[in-house]
């Protein structure tokens, strides 16, 4: 990770030769999002908790360690195969807490509803919020409702925040990973992104691709209960497996190498990616995570994760290595050993993945 040396002042620190307005890609999780975080948000709000750059903040209050996180959901379409904006709003926030090694307890739900949105659809969303919270064993304890003029929203937006309890002394963070650690992935990648894109673009396949949206706190708790000491946990949301691993590698300053042959992808998902010109490594997930664990615990951890997801393939997909020398110095990066045995760099996307011409 590069040092941020400049002072935060009144003038906007993003140079004027860059975009003067927000692009969709600023919210896409790639380089532009990181530019906003590093140049605007971190300098403005800097503090110890934020600077750890985890999925959520870890707060020590007296003897208690809490994890706290927030996320907003603006998905379109609102209802898609395998889930809806309600399941996302609960599971996304629950998973961010789980990735801190916390037991998620309480959620808040803020609804921003567009004038004219059907009460029937709202009822469906509320029910799925309820069901997802029950499934993830969390309570929705506070909330807020706002309505905006017709045309000023996209049906409904949801913000959810969550609090969880950390009941161990492990430091689960990208900074804790070590060379030799193994990287475990809890299933095939890319389902959520393709499910959304297929329903958005009206693409149909022989069998419907369903989102992988699911809570991950159960499996994380099982790992912790079994005495596994994960160095880092990270759910793979927008930006996919590639972006999550790059963030971890850059924060830790170490190299992560993954094996292309070990990364499970459903046939329908890889077929859809091929048609749309997308790389599945960058496609969003909502129920997948990587656990980076010490070498000696990898097989045991894999067995536990596999037992929690009997219907799909969980795999050890790679390992942490000492950093490679590149671009004038040592820095963290992600490399991939391809199916035919060569090696390549996995770089963060600059913007949205754009469909190719041919």
């Amino acid at each position, binding site marked *: 990770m590069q040092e941020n040396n400049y002072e935060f002042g009144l003038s906007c620190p993003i140079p004027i030769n860059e975009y003067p307005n927000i692009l969709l890609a600023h919210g896409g999780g790639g*380089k532009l999002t990181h530019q906003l975080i590093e140049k605007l948000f971190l300098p403005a709000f800097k503090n110890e908790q934020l600077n750890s750059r985890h999925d959520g903040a870890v707060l020590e209050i007296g003897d208690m360690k809490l994890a706290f996180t927030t996320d907003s959901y603006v998905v379109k379409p609102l209802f898609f195969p395998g889930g809806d904006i309600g399941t996302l709003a609960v599971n996304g926030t629950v998973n961010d807490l789980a990735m801190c090694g916390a037991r998620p307890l309480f959620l808040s739900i803020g609804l921003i509803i567009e004038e004219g949105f059907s009460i029937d659809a709202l009822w469906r969303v509320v029910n799925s919020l309820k069901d997802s919270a029950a499934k993830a064993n969390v309570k929705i304890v506070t909330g807020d409702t706002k309505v905006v003029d017709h045309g000023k929203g996209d049906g409904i937006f949801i913000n959810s925040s969550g609090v969880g309890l950390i009941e161990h002394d492990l430091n689960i963070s990208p900074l804790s990973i070590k060379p030799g650690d193994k990287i475990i992935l809890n299933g095939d990648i890319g389902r959520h992104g393709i499910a959304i894109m297929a329903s958005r673009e009206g693409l149909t396949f022989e069998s419907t691709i369903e989102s992988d949206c699911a809570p991950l706190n159960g499996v994380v708790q099982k790992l912790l209960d079994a005495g596994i000491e994960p160095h880092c946990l990270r759910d793979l949301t927008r930006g996919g497996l590639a972006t999550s691993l790059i963030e971890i590698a850059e924060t830790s300053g170490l190299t992560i190498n993954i094996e292309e042959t070990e990364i499970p992808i459903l046939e329908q998902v890889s077929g859809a990616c091929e048609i749309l010109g997308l790389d599945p490594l960058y496609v969003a997930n909502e129920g997948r995570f990587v656990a980076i664990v010490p070498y000696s615990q990898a097989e045991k951890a894999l067995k536990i994760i596999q037992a929690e997801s009997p219907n799909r393939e969980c795999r050890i997909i790679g390992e942490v290595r000492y950093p490679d020398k590149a671009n004038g110095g040592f820095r963290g990066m992600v490399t991939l050993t391809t199916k035919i*045995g*060569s090696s390549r*760099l996995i770089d963060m996307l600059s913007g949205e993945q754009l469909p190719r011409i041919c």
Partner: protein
Amino acid sequence: MKYLEEYRDSSAAKEYIHLIKDTVSRPWTIMEICGGQTHTIVKYGLDEILPDKITLVHGPGCPVCVTAIELIDKAIELAGRPNVIFCSFGDMLRVPGSNKDLLWVKAGGGDIRIVYSPLDALKIARENPQKEVVFFAVGFETTAPANAMAVYQAKQQKLNNFSMLVSQVLVPPAMELVLGSPGNKVQGFLAAGHVCAVMGYSEYEPIAAKYKIPIVVTGFEPLDLLQGIYLTVKQLEENRFDVENQYSRAVLREGNIQAKQLMAEVFKTVTRKWRGLGDIKNSGLALGDAYSAFDAEKKFGLENIMVKESDECKSGLVLQGLLKPYECPAFGTKCTPEHPLGATMVSSEGACAAYYRYRSHQAAKID
């Protein structure tokens, strides 16, 4: 995966590498025409595992990269107009014009829509009769038939609110430009399989004969490319210069006759300016006279927008195989995917972007 994994099989790839190693006795330089092929080569690291005697250079076949900067400026000008819905393939949106790109216009309120087919743009035109719908028709021979179909249907259906900003380009004149360049190093070509699926390959036969150069019509998967390279090396070693067809599962010698007829009906051949390369005679397609009412440049009076290209971008040399992306002084420093000086750094098919994404660790080692 049917028809996908089979062409990425590692044991078959290793067999081809052995075959190539056993065949090659001298250094050879081979150019793959198409940006899609460049992407596969760099993504799978094929150039790394080939024998050192074989040098691959990357050709001008990336439609995003070669679209003239003034066409981008025209697109930006049109897309910003209040009554226009501007439709484009996705990767044109980040291509820098003189001082901004289409994403910038979109963020400023321009109605820009990413479509997967020109026929989607036609549908948008039908649904929005009070708006002008413009489709950005870029691409090689591959996209030309579908783009021709869109205009053909628009005329049939009297969709007068539909028009196209056309920047179609053709492969054979660009190949001749590369071969005719005084510094040319290219000794064999991998022709672009999808272009040939439309056009066939008989038009390459005179080029192979005139320049005494082997041309192998090649697909886009790793095994396609390895087999294409093997066939090219074999010809070079045997001192042959034929046109061969590696991509026979998709390509016939005569191509797709119906598609070619439709292209002939709608388009005419013109001199076109290529980004980084300049004017190339007979290298482009424009709407024929019978379809000129659908020509957005004429319809909106954009014909006089002229732009000078930056001297800093060496993409012209990269596109001719005379410069490797990392040999450019701006590569990875002044020119990155976030701040591209030229379009070869923008499209995933652009040689510079492919090297930056997959190789910047090695480019640094070379330094």
